[in-house]
């Protein structure tokens, strides 16, 4: 992000905002609510006036009601059954059947086998990495669905996509963002890079960074965040990181299943450059997640980058 030196000094000297003339919020006349309601009412009446056809509305309503009553009873029964099931389960907070050879190996030899001090990171990126691979692709799939629904391509009518709120000229927001954004970024990067040593990891770090970029875009306008992540950067990062993730994990699956020697070693436990593939994978996941989240925000807000 570039901060204009002149603007920065102007801000320090608490000049009135230079862009204040361009404020969009005040310009837009909000029509009174009553009028909208009237319009809506008219529209509904017009729709009502149309012939309903052969569908008998009364019987539909009756069936609908029957369905609802039935569903309510089902939900109530489900609640009671589930609660009685819970009462039959072993006591909360005691070591129970789930503590078995599974957990024992994860805890006792997790460090040796994966090089991760954070056992959860070891499980999700090594022992049960296939789930996590699937999980990243769930996010990828969600991104694609959002793009399908909300991206505006070229000549399409984009009127419903224009969003009139723009807080970029709000002084309070800008000044508080100036202090909090660096902290958010540093925290996100810390969480991301130390995923194998302390709580956190690719996903949570990426989400924090993504939220930071969104804050940047809210406080300083699209140009600031656009300088950080443009559409090209977005596409490249998503593509490269996901492809790297897929290929790296496939390599480790393949070597593992065929009992081949993997070239990736766990490294010294406790150091930042340890944990074998976990650190690079965390970085890849973090990049994908932060880009995805920011991309989704842009799609919701504007329909394009």
């Amino acid at each position, binding site marked *: 992000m570039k901060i204009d030196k002149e603007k920065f000094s102007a801000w320090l000297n608490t000049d009135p905002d230079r862009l204040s003339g361009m404020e969009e919020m005040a310009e837009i006349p909000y029509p009174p609510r009553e009028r909208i309601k009237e319009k809506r009412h008219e529209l509904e009446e017009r729709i009502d006036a149309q012939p*309903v056809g052969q569908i008998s509305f009364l019987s539909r309503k009756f069936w609908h009601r029957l369905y609802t009553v039935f569903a309510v009873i089902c*939900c109530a029964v489900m609640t009671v059954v589930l609660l009685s099931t819970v009462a039959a389960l072993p006591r909360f907070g005691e070591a129970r059947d789930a503590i078995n050879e599974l*957990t024992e190996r994860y805890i006792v030899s997790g460090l040796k086998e994966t090089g991760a001090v954070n056992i959860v990171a070891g499980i999700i990126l090594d022992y049960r990495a296939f*789930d996590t691979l*699937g999980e990243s692709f769930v*996010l990828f799939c*969600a991104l694609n669905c959002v793009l399908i629904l909300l991206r505006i391509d070229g000549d399409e009518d984009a009127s419903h996509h224009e969003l009139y709120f723009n807080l970029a000229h709000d002084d309070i927001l800008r000044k508080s963002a100036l202090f909090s954004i660096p902290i958010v970024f540093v925290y996100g990067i810390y969480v991301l890079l130390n995923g194998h040593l*302390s709580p956190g990891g690719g996903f949570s770090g990426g989400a924090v960074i993504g939220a930071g970029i969104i804050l940047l875009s809210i406080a300083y306008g699209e140009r600031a965040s656009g300088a950080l992540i443009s559409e090209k950067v977005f596409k490249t990062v998503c593509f490269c990181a996901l492809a790297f993730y897929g290929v790296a994990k496939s390599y480790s699956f393949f070597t593992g299943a065929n009992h081949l020697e993997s070239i990736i070693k766990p490294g010294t436990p406790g150091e930042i450059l340890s944990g074998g593939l976990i650190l690079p994978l965390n970085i890849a996941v973090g990049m994908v997640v932060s880009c995805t989240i920011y991309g989704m925000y842009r799609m919701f807000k504007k329909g394009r980058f």
Partner: protein
Amino acid sequence: MQGLLNNFDEAAAVILFCIGFSTLLFHRNMLKKIIGLNIMDTGLYLFLASMGYIRGAGAPILTDTEVINMADYINPVPSALVLTGIVVSVSVTAITLSLTVRLYSKYRTLNLDEIYAIARRTEKEEF
């Protein structure tokens, strides 16, 4: 009843699940439905996480890398599963929200009943 009090966390999780489930099923407002979905999912994750909790044990992050004592750590598997689940639920939230935006831009309402009514009458199709 005693069993419910013993397993208070699980019971709370199940209640949250049921509240979310009924909100998702019965509420006609799309946004409420989506929030209900999230509550349902968090209820499930709370259920899973509270099963892995062991009284007196700590977080599954090794404090001493030389001597590892099993009893010091809670069951790490539920945490790993919940992490995966959270990602799934945020993805689902994003998709359903974008569907809501599209529906709104077409039908100008968030209420599913109204949307059905408009769609049924204007498009002459049985919905």
